[in-house]
Structure formats: structure tokens, C-alpha cells
């Protein structure tokens, strides 16, 4: 039976897949349009004791962008002078185990991810879980909050995190 839950899951999944597609094709200006004007995009520190509840203004984060910074991040990554991503790496965002639900008047989602990045003869993996707070806008969504927590102890294998997860 096609319930409301199933429809929501498919809608959210399609939306997350679209975000992944924009990232893998380096359409970063278009990617920023998925975010609300008061959005936050965060990647928690690998050493955080409680990464889902950590406060980026109280403890160290890998990424803690407000909506202006995430747009400037995208803008920078499109420049040749963003040396770490010139030429652009090849990436593949895989998203699975999508769980979508309603809470506090928002559509929320949790998903697992593995993202591969290849550059300068080296392939790195970033894996973990992402939590989204979405805002429904007509038939579509916008992202109000996205936090990624990676299942890593250090970035010794990857060296850096220069792509968007």
C-alpha cells in the first residue's frame, strides 16, 4: 500500500539524490540554491564526544557554515585559485538507508553516505551519516540544516576535506 510515509520517503530520497548529482557534476552555484537563506551546513569534528548535539560555537567543527559561508564556499570552489580543488576532483556521492519523518513541523531525514574523491592519483573515502532539516516549498524542499558525522577517527587516510559531502 502506498502510504504517506512511502511517498515522503521517495520525495526526500529524490531530493537527496538531486543534491548528490549537483555535487558530483560540480554544479555548486545550483547546489547552493537548495539551501534556505538561514541554512547551516556542518561537518562535526571526528573527535567530538557527542557529534549530533555538539555546538559549533563551543567546540571545533570541520565545517560550520552559515548560509553566506556555504555560498562563499561554493563560489570559492569554482575558482582556479581554490588550489585544493583545481583541477576539480572526481567525486561520487552514494546515499542510502534514507529515513524521512515529520518532527517539530519540519520534514527531517537521516541517511547514510559514502563519498569517493579521486585526485592526484589517490582515491579517498568519506563515510558516515547525515541529518537534514528540510523545509517544504510547494512540491519541492529546501535544506535548512545539514549535519554530517563521519565514521572516521582521523583524516590521516584522506588528508583533507575539500569537497562538499
Amino acid at each position, binding site marked *: 500500500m502506498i502510504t504517506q510515509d512511502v511517498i515522503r520517503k521517495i520525495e526526500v530520497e529524490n531530493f537527496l539524490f538531486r543534491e548528490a548529482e549537483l555535487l558530483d557534476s560540480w554544479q555548486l552555484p545550483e547546489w547552493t540554491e537548495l539551501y534556505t537563506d538561514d541554512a547551516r551546513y556542518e561537518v562535526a569534528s571526528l573527535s567530538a564526544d557527542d557529534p549530533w548535539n555538539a555546538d559549533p560555537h*563551543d567546540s*571545533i567543527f570541520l565545517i560550520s557554515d552559515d548560509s553566506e559561508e556555504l555560498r562563499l564556499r561554493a563560489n570559492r570552489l569554482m575558482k582556479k585559485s581554490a588550489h585544493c580543488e583545481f583541477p576539480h576532483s572526481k567525486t561520487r556521492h552514494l546515499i542510502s538507508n534514507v529515513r524521512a519523518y515529520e518532527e517539530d513541523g519540519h520534514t527531517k531525514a537521516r541517511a547514510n553516505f559514502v563519498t569517493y574523491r579521486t585526485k*592526484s592519483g589517490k582515491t579517498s573515502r568519506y563515510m558516515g551519516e547525515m541529518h537534514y532539516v528540510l523545509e517544504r516549498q510547494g512540491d519541492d524542499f529546501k535544506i535548512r540544516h545539514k549535519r554530517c558525522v563521519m565514521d572516521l577517527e582521523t583524516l*590521516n587516510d584522506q588528508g583533507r576535506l575539500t569537497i562538499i559531502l
Partner: protein
Amino acid sequence: MKAQATITPVRSRSESQGEGLVDIDRNKGRFRVNRAAYKDPDVFELEKKKIFDKCWLYVGHRSEIANPGDYVVREVGGRDIIFTRDRKGEVNTLINACTHRGATVCREKKGSARSFTCPYHGWTFDNTGKLLSTFSNEGYREDLNEDGRLNLPKPARLEHYRGFYFINFNPKAISLSDYLAGAKDVIDSYCDQAAEGEDGLYVVKGEHAYSIRANYKYLVENSYDGYHVIPTHISYLEYLKDRAANAGAEEDVNVVAKAGANFRGTGKTRCLGHGHAVLDSRVPTGRPVADPLERWPDKVKQQVNENRKRLEERYGEEYASYLAELQKNLVIFPNLVFNDNVGLTIRVINPVSHNEIHVRAWGLGHTGEPPELKAIRMDNFSNFLGPAGFGSADDIEMLELCQRGIENSPTEWSEYSKGMNVDAPDLRLQEGAPDDECQMQAYWTQWDRVMRDIDTFEQE
């Protein structure tokens, strides 16, 4: 300056043409470094003995083990160390390997414990390293550990300067205070910025832990290299300018443009003895202590101005303006960096091999600081300095390009002569412009002297 080299690594013997790996000729204004210093595994093996077994190496800050029993596990100079506070409140450093078979004793990265039990045969040590139990005593003589040889060993020396703890594996080493030389004044300036002085500094939660496929000295140099700021970090300056422009803060836009147009005029590099040096520069990021940006909210600007007033009252205008306005990037020989940019961060550069390093970095906060100001520090620590930031990520790329370039090219020497004071009595005590290379000349002069046993950092 032509001393006979004692370094004769297999691949660099011909490259260094029988001389040292650092070639200084003041008459010709020449300062260059043989690239074997970055790419020869034999040089790295020598560095382990001559540098990392002889120099003072940073372990941690006292705030990280504030209470009796607290511990953190650290990699220091290629060794696993437990940095811990015992029940009497004394700070200890212990080698984290069982004296029985060698297994790692403490497997958690941090916590609180009175004792550490090896998971293999159950040997238990207290947090001063004393062997408490061998799990099964039968079969051992009663005086097994009478001489204490089976206690967890400690590095030969442990000392601190204003709460920053260092170890030294050489029992004959000079004191930490003597070793730090002029770098102590810069550490003082970090303490003096906090309202409560050195007791008001604490390491905030979380850390950056990443790697770079390059020789450790590349990151050392990069950490106080003013010359690379504009070419490498132009996109960061553009980011600062965009943020200022988005906020309609014309003054901030002008300050960024000014620094970009004349970085050379923003400060100076000062060599502090023993290979340590600091880059003092004014980069227009704003500083919670105590140099506000126009675009910051009024409330924040007011808080920053109060900080400034406190500094002026306490220290006078001149030193207050030094504390407030200048970014102070300090390198302590051989592998410790303090970046006092927006806020203060500590970066330890652990060499893993001749072409790989593990970087660990922590941010410091000030006790009692308003949360708005702390937030500014935290934001900068992720958006510029971290492995996902707008600055360090580009640095990492540059260093890996360097390592690849020197490994895959026959060129023997790298050029380091920019700004050399050919008349300076000691290149380790010279000064230069922010985009000169005096600080690196000081570092390499010291490196060369240590590698050739001219300096051992030992007591007379």
C-alpha cells in the same frame, strides 16, 4: 661556513657534493637547502636521533588534564605518550607500551583513570607509571620490580612553560626555559591576551587530525611563510572581501585591499634564537582580542573594545596594540606551531616518514570570554585553519605539490635567500619583512647545526 658534513645519506652524498645540506654563502647572498633534506629517508632517520631525540617536543596543555586522574594519549616524536595528572595533582608523561611484551596499555584517547591495565597479560600500572600488579604473581621472584625497571618508562624530562608541557628524551638536555629562548616572549603574549592570564587559557573541545603527504619541514615553513599568503590564499582574501562587501562594511573591504596590495608592510618576521621565529603580520580577519571588524554586530564590537581597553590599562598602549592587532605565527623548533590569527591554535607536526606527516591541532579559548567572541574564534578555526577550511586545504595542496616536484625532478637545491641579512652576526637572531625568508634561514641554520652535532642542546 664551509664545515665538513657528517651527514652522508646514501642518495644525497653526490647531491650535496660532499658539503652540508644547507649552503650559506654570505658574500654571494646565497642561502639554499639541498632537497635531500626533504626526500631522503636516511636524512629522516638521522633527524629522529639528532633532532627528535634531543629537542623539546610539545605534549599538551595543562587545561587538557585539569583534574587528578585525567589523561590524554598523544603521539610525540614518534612515540605514544600518556599525558596524565596523578592523584597528588602532579603531571606525568608515560610511555604507552607495556614493559612486559610491549602492547599498548591505554587504548582510549582520553579519559580519567587511576591506573592503566594492559589488555594482554593484565599488568596494571598506576598513573605515575608504577607497576601495581602482574595479574598472576606465581612464578615471579618477589623482588621482580625492586629496581622499578618494569614501571612504565617516562621520557627523560618533562617541563612546562606557562602551562604548555614539553618532553625531552635526552636526560642531559638544557632546560625548557633556556631552549625556548626568545619564543617565551611570544608565548607570554598569548597568555597576556586572556583576561585571567595564563590560567585563563584552555583547550576547547575537539581537534583537527589529518595528514599531508610531504616532509614535515614543508609544513613548518608554510606555517610562518608570509611570502605565500597572497599567491596561495588569494581566494581567502576574496572571501574576506566578499563577506565585508555583503555586509556593506566599506572599511573592512579597504583593509583587505590594503593588506593584499602591500603585505610586506603589515609587520615583520623576528628570529628568536635556537631556530624559533615568529611572523608578526596584520591580516584583516579581525581579532576578538582586540581588533574588531566593521561588519561585526555592535554588541560584539563593544565587547572587543572592552578587551582593548583592558589591555591598554594593564599593559600600556604600545604593547596592547601589539597584542590586539598583530597575528603572531610562531614556530618552535623543530615541529610546533602556534597560530595566533583570529584566535590561538596549536599545531603539532608529527613526521611519520620522510614524506608523510600527521598533523594535530587544537584551539584555545579564554575563560570568561563572551560566547559571541568565542564563536568568532571557533568559526575561524574551521573556515581557515582546518583541513576543510579555505586556507589550510590550499596549503596542503601546495606542500604535496612540492614533495611530488622534488621527488620527481633532478634539481638539487631550493632557494631560501629572500631578505637575508648578510651582516647579521647570527642568522638565528635576524629580523626581516613579513614576506622575507629570514625565519626559514634561522630554522635551517639551526637544523644544519644540530644535524652536524655543532649544537646538541645539552647542558655544559
